[in-house]
Structure formats: C-alpha cells, structure tokens
C-alpha cells in the first residue's frame, strides 16, 4: 500500500516507462496524476509512512491543509501537462516528467528536512532532462547552469539542515525562522529555488531553453515547491515581505523589453512569485491563505500561458515576439485561451487571479505595510503590461507576420481549454478554491469597491497602453539578448575581468601588459593544467613521480620531527 503513496506512485510509474510502448506511455502519464490525487485524498490529516532511513525517522507523507492544497494543484498540473504532451514520444522526457512531478509532490508532503532534501535534489536532477531534451549544444550549456544552481540550492539546504540538526537535534520540518546559521542556509537554499532577486536568473535562463512541453511542466513545480517550503518554514519572516516586493517589481521591466515570449513568461512567473513571497512574509492566516490560493491559480494560468505560447512555438518554430503577429486568424482557439490566461494573470474580475491576488493585497494593507502594498498595486499594473497585453497582443494581433500556422493539435487544444475553464471557474466561484485553503476564509472578493478599484486600475492601464502605442512610445519588439544579473557569471566571470584589468592597467601603464596577461591567462591556465597534456593530467614520468615522493617525504619528516 505504501508504494501507492503519491510520490512513490510517480517514481514507480517512471520505472515502467522504458518498457512500455509509445501510446501506453502517454496514457500512463495521464493516469498517474489521477491515481496520485486519489491516493493523496485517501490519506487522513497527520503523519503517514514514517520510515527509518539513514538513522533517522523519515516522514514521507505529512498531510495537513497546507500540504494538501499544494499536492492537489501539483497533481492537476501534472495531469494537464500530460494531456498537453500527449504527442511527445520521448522516453527521457516522459520519465523526467514523472520523476519531477512525483518528487515535487513528495517535497510538499515531506514531514522532515531530510525527506524534503531528498526530493529537493530529485526535482533538480529530473527537471534538467526537460531542458537537455531539446538536444542542442546551447540547451546543454543552459541545462548545466540550471543544474549547478539547483544542486547548489540543495547543497545549501543540506548544509543548513545538518547545522540545524546539530543545533537542535531535530530534523522536523516545521516553522524554522531565521534564528541560526543553519536556518539561514536553509532559507537561502529555498530562496534560490524561489528565484529571489539576484538568484533568479536560472529561471529566465532555463525555461525558454526547455522543450515545448517541458516548459509547461517546469513552470508548475520547482518554484511553487519553494513557496510551499517558505510558507512552512518561514511564515511571518519580515524580510520576505521586502524581498517579495522587490521580486514583484523588477522583473516587470525586464519582461517588458524581452523578445522571447517564453522568457517574458519566466519573468512574469518571477513577478507572481513575489506576490506569494509577500504573503508568506506577512504570515497571517489571511496572507498564507492568499499565498496558497495564488500559487494554486498561478500554476493554472501560467501553465495556460506557457501552453499557448508553446503551441505557437510548436506550429511556427519560434516564440520570439518580433517574428510573430496576426496569428489569431489561424489559431483562434489558442488565442482565446491565451486571452483567458492573460486576463487571469492580470486579475480581471471573474478570472482566477482576481480572487487570489486580492487576498495578499488585503493582507498586506491590513497589516500596515502600505509601501509594500503600493508596490504590489504598481506591479499589478505591470503584470497587465507584459503578460496581459504583450503576450496575446504581439503574438496574435499587432502587425501581421504573414505566418499562417495551423491551429494547435487537438490534445493541446483540449489541455488549454480545460485549463482556461478552470481559470474562469475559480474566478466565478471562488468559494470552491477557498474551501481548500489552509485556514478558515472569511473574505468576499466581489465587493463593489473592490471590483471598481481593480477595473479602474486595469482600464486606465489599458488606456495608457493605447496612449503609448499611439504616440510610438511603446518599445518595439526587437531581437536581442537582455542582460540580467546572470551576466556576472556568464560574461564577467568567464571573460574574467580583462576589461577591469584593462581599465586599471591603462592608468598604471607600466603594469598594463603583464597584469592583463596574468588575469586573462589565469582562467586559461586552470583549464590548461587540467586538460589532457596539462601538467596535472599528463603522464608523469617515473623521475618526476619519484621526485614528488622525495619532496613529500621531506615534508612529512619536517612535520614529524618538528
């Protein structure tokens, strides 16, 4: 029976993948989330599956209302992604999807830090295959960067949990708070996966590099698992409020000028995470409700947006705004679904974003964080600008690109329509969602003043868009790469400061050539000595080996006789 616990079910199915035929694999992918959800709901609240491992008692299923809602939405997301990926006939992607979704669910069900860590790393390792599955050298490089950052997050979590264990003697995953070095490390580990500012680039770097279906899968799990972890361990940590506020604001600017639509969505994902992080930081029951609800809605509409952009990519071969336009003529269903997603993320009344985001806004304002609240309002207008307008407008309308792709395949349309219906359903009947939230909800989203203020905000923002377009002030879509903080490790560090050295050296002309050479050659030298034929990996001759022995002997004698 324990094998049928949700995370194990997924892993078990993943093992079956290699031996199944093409269609039965796709079917398996579709069925596993269904059974996973049934299995999840069949557990009562409390700890189950406590297994001794590594000398600890590990709790594999800890079900309460907080983990339940994340478990449910993860199952739904896995199901929708499976429909959307019905056409995929790639064992590696299918296996990675199952392991990834399973370990994400395992992560939110984990009752202790070690189990959490196990799944934390499993998501990292599994998900990178969705990027590598694109099978280009560039996606390999991107995947490698992604993997290293994800594993780094896991490593920090591991270090933190060991310290925490040393301090407290407990591995329980409950409220941690920023009280010691250990908890700080865990916090940073969570922060990396949650794409905190300056740790966010992996997200924008990797999501556009994944496969069409891979991005849809990726968008659902990693970051939301981190949000859950933060909500579990660091609810009410004030620093999160400000981190969240910054997260909602700065990606807007990048999203606005980014050309690759999947990267626009990645930035917008970052911005939406900001709302959730603010909710965690405020930490009241209402705010945590808001975080959970927003995560729920967000997974749906972000998946919907990624699906529609993915469908366009699937049919046209590009997701660059500058190459697209006028597609509504031949992909109307995709367009309508995209509009629903856009309306949801922009929080138009009757769409899902409206009923969840307002919980967080209200929580922040009622706790007196006015500046943060104002930042969130501004960010809401910003969300409209890039996800609400830019994605559908530049893809399906704007100038006609002359492309007449066929409508998305049937299974993609089905996936998108179901997701769109869910978005609208939650928007219209928020009670259904509110019933799932971790705490008692006493909130009415549809009040006159609330609807009015939101409509004002959005309509006037639309008006501003019209105004800007009319006056030619809106930045045109251009091909290109926008720098972000990953520039530091992708350009600055590898090119390693020849520029800086140059600047210094030009003032100190005498040192110029030597200093520059030294720094430029440093990176090369590290590689140089390690390459085959380099001093470290050359075939050492007997003479030099014996010389080393002698030197070592001298050193040893020196120490032993001192």
């Amino acid at each position, binding site marked *: 029976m324990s094998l049928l616990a949700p995370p194990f079910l997924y892993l078990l199915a993943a093992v079956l993948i290699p031996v199944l035929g093409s269609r039965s694999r796709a079917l398996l992918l579709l069925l596993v989330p269904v059974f996973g959800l049934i299995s999840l709901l069949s557990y009562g609240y409390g700890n189950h599956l406590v297994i001794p491992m590594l000398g600890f008692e590990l709790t594999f299923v800890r079900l309460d209302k907080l983990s339940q809602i994340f478990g449910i939405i993860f199952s739904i997301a896995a199901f929708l992604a499976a429909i959307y990926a019905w056409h995929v006939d790639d064992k590696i992607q299918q296996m990675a999807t199952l392991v990834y979704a399973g370990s994400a669910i395992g992560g939110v069900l984990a009752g202790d830090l070690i189990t959490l860590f196990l799944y934390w790393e499993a998501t990292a390792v599994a998900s990178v295959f969705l990027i*590598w599955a694109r*099978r280009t050298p560039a996606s*390999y490089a991107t995947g490698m960067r992604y993997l290293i950052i994800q594993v780094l997050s896991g490593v920090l979590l591991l*270090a933190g949990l060991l310290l925490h264990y040393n301090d407290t003697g407990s591995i329980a995953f409950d409220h941690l708070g920023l009280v010691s070095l250990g908890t700080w490390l865990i916090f940073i580990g969570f922060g990396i996966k949650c794409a905190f500012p300056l740790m966010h680039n992996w997200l924008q770097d990797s999501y556009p590099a994944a496969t069409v279906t891979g991005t849809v899968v990726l968008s659902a799990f990693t970051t939301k698992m981190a949000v859950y972890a933060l909500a579990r361990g660091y609810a009410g940590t004030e620093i999160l409020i400000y981190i969240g506020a910054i997260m909602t604001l700065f990606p807007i600017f990048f999203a606005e000028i980014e050309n690759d639509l999947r990267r626009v969505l990645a930035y917008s994902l970052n911005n939406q995470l900001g709302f959730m992080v603010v909710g965690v930081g405020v930490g009241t029951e209402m705010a945590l409700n808001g975080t959970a609800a927003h995560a729920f809605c967000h997974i749906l509409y972000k998946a919907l947006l990624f699906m529609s952009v993915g469908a366009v990519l699937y049919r046209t071969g590009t997701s660059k705004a500058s190459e697209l336009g006028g597609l509504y003529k031949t992909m109307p269903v995709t367009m309508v679904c995209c509009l629903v997603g856009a309306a949801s993320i922009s929080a138009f009344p009757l769409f899902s974003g409206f009923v969840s985001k307002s919980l967080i806004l209200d929580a922040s304002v009622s706790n007196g964080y006015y500046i943060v609240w104002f930042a969130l309002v501004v960010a809401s207008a910003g969300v409209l600008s890039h996800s609400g307008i830019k994605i559908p407008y530049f893809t399906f309308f704007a100038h006609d690109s002359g492309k007449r792709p066929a409508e998305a395949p049937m299974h993609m349309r089905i996936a998108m329509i179901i997701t769109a219906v869910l978005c609208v359903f939650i928007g219209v009947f928020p009670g259904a969602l509110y019933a799932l939230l971790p705490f008692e909800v006493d909130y009415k989203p549809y009040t006159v003043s609330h609807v009015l203020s939101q409509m004002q905000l959005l309509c006037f923002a639309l008006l501003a868009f019209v105004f800007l377009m009319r006056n030619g002030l809106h930045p045109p879509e251009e091909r290109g790469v926008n720098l972000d903080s990953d520039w530091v490790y992708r350009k600055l560090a590898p090119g390693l400061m020849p520029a800086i050295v140059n600047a210094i050296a030009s003032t100190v002309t005498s040192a110029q050539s030597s200093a520059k050479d030294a720094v430029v050659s440093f990176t090369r030298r590290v590689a140089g000595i390690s390459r085959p034929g380099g001093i470290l990996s050359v075939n050492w001759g*007997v003479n*030099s080996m014996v010389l080393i022995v002698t030197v070592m002997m001298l050193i040893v004698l020196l120490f*032993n006789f001192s």
Partner: protein
Amino acid sequence: MIADQLPALQIVIPMLAAPLCVLVKRSNACWAIALVANVLVVINAFALLHQVRTDGVIRYALGGWAAPTGIEYYVDTMNAIMLLLVSFISCVTLVFAYTSVKKTVVTGKHYLFYAAWMLCLTGLLGISITGDAFNVFVFLEISSLATYMLLAFGSDRRALTASFRYLIMGSVGASFILIGIGFLYAATGALNMVDLAQRIPDAESQRAVLVAFSFLTIGLMIKAAVFPLHGWLANAYQHAPIAVTAFLAGTATKVSLYVLLRFFFSIFGPNYSFGAMLLNVVLLPAAIVGFLLLSLVAIFQTDLRRMLAYSSVAQIGYIVAAFCLATQSGLTAGIVHIINHGIIKTALFMSVGCIIYRVGHAHIGSLDNLMKKMPLTVTAFIISGLGLIGVPLTVGFISKFSLIGASLERGWWMVGALVLVSSLFAIVYVGRVVEIMVFRSSRTDTPEPTGMREAPMSMLVPMYVLIGISLWFGISGSTTLSVASEAAAALLGGYQ
C-alpha cells in the same frame, strides 16, 4: 570444525586456484576454477563477517604458533568488511571478465591471466586479514606483482609502460612500507600488530619509531594513490584490460587505505598519529587539494577511463579527509565511502568496459547518441554516475552526507564546504558524458558503425548486480552505516 578454519580458507582457496589454473591451462576451465574459488571466498567472507559480528574478534594462529611468536590472522569487523568487499567485487568482475578477456587478452595466455587474478585476490585478501605487520608486506608484494602482470595484459602497447611505471612506483611504495616495518621491528622487537600496538607507547619517543611512521605514511600514500603521489594510477587504469581496471578500482586502493587505517589507528593509535605526529597536517591538505584539483582535472579528460581514474583519486581524497577527522563519525564516513565507492566505481568501469567492448574505444567526444544503441549500458552509467555525484537515494549520498555531518561535528566547516564544491565538479564531469551519450545526436560525417548493439548479457548482469546493490545501500543506508560504525568503533578502541 570448518567454522574455525574460515580465516585460513579465505586465503587458501584463491591461492589454490592459481596453480590449478596454470596446470589446467584451458581458458574456459581456468575461468570456471577461478570463479568457483571466488564464489567460495565470497561465501567464506560473508560467514566471517557474520561470525565476527556475533562472536567478536577472531584470532587464527597459523601453524598453531600462538600470537607474538607466530603469524596470526586477526579478523574484526573492519577487515571482515574489507574481505567481503574485495572478494565480492572480484567475483562480479570475474564474471564480467569472461567475455571481455576473450577480446583483449591473447588467446594462449588466458590461464596466466586468471592465475594472476587469483594471486592478486590472494594478496589483497591476505593484506586485509593478516595480523602481522611483515605479513602485510608479503601479501602486498604478492598482490602488486600479480597486478603488474594483469596490467601488462592490456591490448595497448602503452599498457607495458603503464605497468612498468606502476612497478617502479609500487616497488618504491612497498620498500617504504618495508623500511617502516623494519624500523618498527628495530624499535619494538615486535611484528605482530597487537603486540606492536602494546609496545609502541613505550617506544614512542624513539627516533626509529618516528622514522618508521614517516616511511609508512609515504609508502601507504603511494599505494593508496593519495593526491600528489597518484601519478601511476591514471595510466594504469586507462591501459589495463578493462575488467582488471574495474577489479583494481574497486579493491586495490581501498585495501591500501585499509592498511593505512590499521597502522595509524590500531597500531599507532589516533592520539599518536593525529595528535603527536600531526598526520593531518600532511594528509588533510593533500586529500583536500586532491579531491578539488582532480575533480577539476576529470572534467577536462577526453578518455572515459582516464576521467574515471582521476575521479577515483578525488574520491580517495574524500576518504582520506574523512580519516583525518579521526573521530568515530569521521571514520564511519570514510569506511562507508570505501564500500560505496568500491561498488559504484567498479560498476562505472564495467559500463565503460561494455562501451569499449562494442564501440572499441572510450573517447568521450565520439560516444554521441550511445543511448539509442546501448540503452542498458548507458542507463547503468547514469545511475552509477549519479552515485558518484552523490545524488540522494544513491550510495554516494550516504557517504557524502555522513562525511559532511562528521566534518561539521568536528567543527571543520571548510572541509564539508569543499566537499560540496567538488561535488559540483562531479556534476559537471558526469553530466558532460551523460549529455553526450544521451542527447547529442550522431554526427553526420562519421559513418554509423553498423550492427552496434547492447553489450552481451555476461557483462550486463554483473554490472546490474552491482548497481542493484548500490541502490539498495543507497536507499537503506543504515545497513552499511551500522556495520561501518562498528568497524570504526573497533578501530578507535584499539586492540582488545
């Protein structure tokens, strides 16, 4: 009755198999003899481990001459583990060797190959089981000489130079060890390990003991391929027949590490080795620089075997670093990693063996899209590669987890942090190979080798046996951890 004779049988069986192979001379028959002997040895080792864990230390006097006078075999949990590990790895690699040896070794010399293999096994088991310092040297020489021969069986001409280099370095190392033992004998008048351990505290201040200590340090570092003295290893592993590489990678350096443990913990005692003698001033930096630098070197390698060889040296760095903590948990971590690394590295070299068997070389750059042609082999490589990185639920994770935990417990943060850094390197070098094998499509300009298919069953089965065990150990880490911590306690407790 036979239960009393287990320690002797452990050595006698493989030693008997060697001359039998020479007499029989027919390739398949030799293999069968060696395999039967090996299976018996595994069972024997298992029984020994069981016996030790239930009844405590076993002391077996050879020829009936009691301990300080005669040679004795001394079995506690620590060397029972080593016996089981060595004989088991030898057993699976021997099964694996059946097919691959036919391809690489000249037909008329198979019987010599298997005889040398059995002698090597005898030597390694002997080192592990004996309780006599000089006997260690004797068995060390038996295993080394057999190893030189096994290495020279490589089909590549460079195998000869590699073997010769190893011969020189191995002899230097063995002489250092011999000199060390000689000095110890001069200072204490004892060769029996238990006896030595009792007498050394009185002779501690003697110059001879100090010199002996230094010689043993260097000698064992060479034999175990600890960082600056690892030069012989990469070549030897690259050019030897791949079955031999798999065998040696899992056993030879591990046994040397065991001897290191024996001498520095049981005989000299941790207080002397790591207190008075500042052994960690020498070993710890060497270990740390080793695992950092050689993980880096592994990234840049173009030959798969060489990459794994450098990764081996890096892993030895972890083990030595764990020893240097000189605490119960540190030793446990080191011993667990000896077991775990032995298993996964052997599995890795086996998968490389499968690749070489079918592709004919192990040049990383041209293994593109191998997943299509040899899915089982590549899967095995990926699983054990993940173990090498230390991904959770693999054995590597257990090792790294306990190593980092131990270093934090000791208060050496940096060691733990650096281990993590070098794990990131491991991700790169394993990931690079996996990416090429799984995702990179074949280049169009090279003609597709026709008829490429999965490696034969006789190679796949032993590989998957190892992988199954590694997964089992990875998922229920408590099995190995509890045994290893018993062993560590035995080592720290000194001889009873």
